[in-house]
């Protein structure tokens, strides 16, 4: 079994209005905890978490907005090359749902073709103050081929489930990540590289 277990890495971006709970969702998923007063920015480039499916392992490289959504200044670099996106809204705010729809459209226009998009209605623990009906969001998601779940980062309801559903839907072909000739740059062992260059080797 273990021999067949393949690891696939995907870039996943979070989108949505400020204060809908994007960072909290990620922290619940990655760290398993929740802070009532989460600061609006996170001091990390991105977080990583792994989901194990039957015969494959999916590693998410999760990008948070770093507050750049606040004045609508997210850079195209942010969602470039993302294979998955979670568009989050607050079930208590119709504005945040409208904004989420705009993000979905932006992703369909500018994002990678074949991107897997999940719509998440967050703050399900505060359902008493709900303004966005489940059926309405569900219908929108179906019409646009999105995954849909209502979540609560506070109680952890549906958080892992959401990531697992995304992991299942992502295409697991070896060609998903490394495009032709694309490379990340990493530190290189000085001595190893030296040997190869024409002037240092003999």
């Amino acid at each position: 079994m273990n021999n067949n277990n393949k690891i696939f890495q995907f870039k996943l971006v979070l989108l949505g209005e400020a204060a809908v709970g994007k960072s909290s969702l990620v922290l619940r998923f990655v760290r398993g905890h929740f802070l009532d007063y989460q600061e609006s920015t996170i001091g990390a480039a991105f977080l990583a978490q792994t989901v194990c499916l039957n015969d494959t392992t999916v590693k998410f490289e999760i990008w948070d907005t770093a507050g750049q959504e606040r004045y609508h200044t997210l850079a195209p670099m942010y969602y470039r090359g993302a294979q998955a996106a979670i568009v989050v809204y607050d079930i208590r705010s119709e504005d945040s749902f409208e904004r989420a729809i705009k993000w979905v459209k932006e992703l369909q226009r500018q994002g990678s073709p074949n991107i897997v998009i999940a719509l998440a209605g967050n703050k399900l623990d505060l359902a008493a103050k709900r303004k966005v009906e489940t059926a309405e969001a569900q219908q929108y998601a179906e019409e646009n081929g999105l995954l849909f779940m209502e979540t609560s980062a506070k109680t952890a309801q549906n958080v892992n489930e959401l990531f697992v559903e995304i992991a299942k839907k992502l295409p697991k072909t070896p060609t998903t990540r490394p495009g032709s000739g694309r490379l990340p740059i990493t530190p290189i062992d000085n001595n190893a590289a030296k040997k190869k260059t024409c002037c240092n080797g003999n």
Partner: protein
Amino acid sequence: MEEEQRLNIKKEKETWIDVDQFDVVLLGTNFIESILAGALARAGKSVLHLDKNSFYGGFDSSFTLSQLATLLEESKDVKDPIPPYLSNVIVTDNSKIFEEEERLEQERKDKEEQEEQERKRLEQEKEKQTEQQDTKDDETKGGEGEESKGEEQQQEQTPIVKKPIKKTLHELGRFFSIDLAPTLLYSRGSMVNLLISSSASKYLEFKSLDQNYLYAKNTLYNIPSTKGSIFKDSTFSLREKRLIMKFIETIRELTQPTENEQDKQEQEKKLEELNSKHDGNFLKLVKSFGMTELVESFVLYGLSLIHENLESISLKQGVESVQLYVSSLLVYGTSPFLVPYYGCGDIPQAFCRLCAVYGGTYVLQRSVESLSFDENNILQGIKCTEGQPIKTKYFIASPAYVKTLDTQNTYPTITKRYSRFIGITNKKLNNTLEQSFITLPPNTCSNKNVINILQLDSICVPYLKGKTLYHFTTLSEGESTAEEDLKSSVDNFFANNTQEATSTDKPRLEWSSYFNFTFETLTNDIKEKNVLNKDGGVLVCSDSPIGSTIDYASQLEEAKKLFEYICPNEIFLEKVPEPEDIVWGEAQ
């Protein structure tokens, strides 16, 4: 009336920034400002970063084809432009003509094919009739007759398979990433080192160029990347190969990193000897090798890649740049150069994100209206274009902004101008590898200065087959236009119409543009003064998207100096901790 005014103010205030005090306000998200913003936020400063454009990077940005076309079109109408600006813009779009030609050609082919199939069908029918005749004659062949019937059915089905619809150039245009100011990164250059050390490289992906060439005597010479490839090369004579190796060996001896003190002293002594022998001049050192004209070109333009004021380059600078070239070979690929996969515009974006991750605030489409000073000429704050006053100790922007905002002080700058050509063709140059860099020494195609040519895949989507994108760049002096500076070299490589392309086998220009690019930069001594003179908190940084070297070294140096002025005791872009090392929930 009053009520209306009050409402207006309220409406305006809705767009205001939540915070009205920052340590530093930067205007413009060019390369230098972005790196600086990232470094300042990383060092704990509160940063507000504004840009009047709706996109990041200013002229250091990368554009889709339609964005580029719009930008070029708009720049034609600007009166009294201030740097950086584009001028003498010429755009030629032949894509529709070629696409129509191709369509007609395809129709003709389809028709021929149809006729051919019709002819075959008739022939087969005839055969079948004879076969049937045969079957009657010999019943054992019946099975074969049925088989051929099956084949026939298959053949009838094949024409139904639809050919993929060919996308037009403009439909493909959105997958393009075209730089106004393309820049290359040495694999072992200061920019790549910084990207790695600061962790900003995590946001980016790169591609390695395949090959560097020198164009001389109507020939493209490979610039070899290994000793082996020098000797395999068939374009240089044996004597020339020896000269190249001797030169590289000399540079290696001078610059090889060593721990041994004695070796170090020896190196320094040797360098000093050479320095006094050649008056500290790189060109004189090169001349002393007694090279052929071709080898000299190869060394000066192919390896050193310093393309401005070559006569006055110091021996040390020349030696260092050759060493940088040589040590960058075979690090990530055969060429010493990397380019960002989605264009250079991603580099400012990566550093802006780094700034945001460390709490920096970003607002696009917003500029600065005025600066306010106290009686001692010390900056107190700025006023945004939305009317919001913001307190700040430092304001940093390019010369054009600072000059209009702070008229009390003088900020001397020098203006530089480049000629640029951007072309999209149907194929790459013959006998070249896909991603290539070509250097044209002066006087190759009646060019006064060195011309750099970059050949790239135009489309950044791996499975979409693209066109080929070309960038030509040269320093422009006097009043000559980009077309005057570059046309003869462009015509040397490309065809303008199908007839020419067919008869010469040159790539055909489907879309092209010439333009001049003017910007302001600080001279070396002004740079010092600007940083060290306390201008009351107003700091200037060059526009310069293109430096005198091929990479970002000089711009990076400038960002670093500005940073050190504001944060004298801090580390410039300290490495970001790995996610695993972060302790959560304690930073309240």
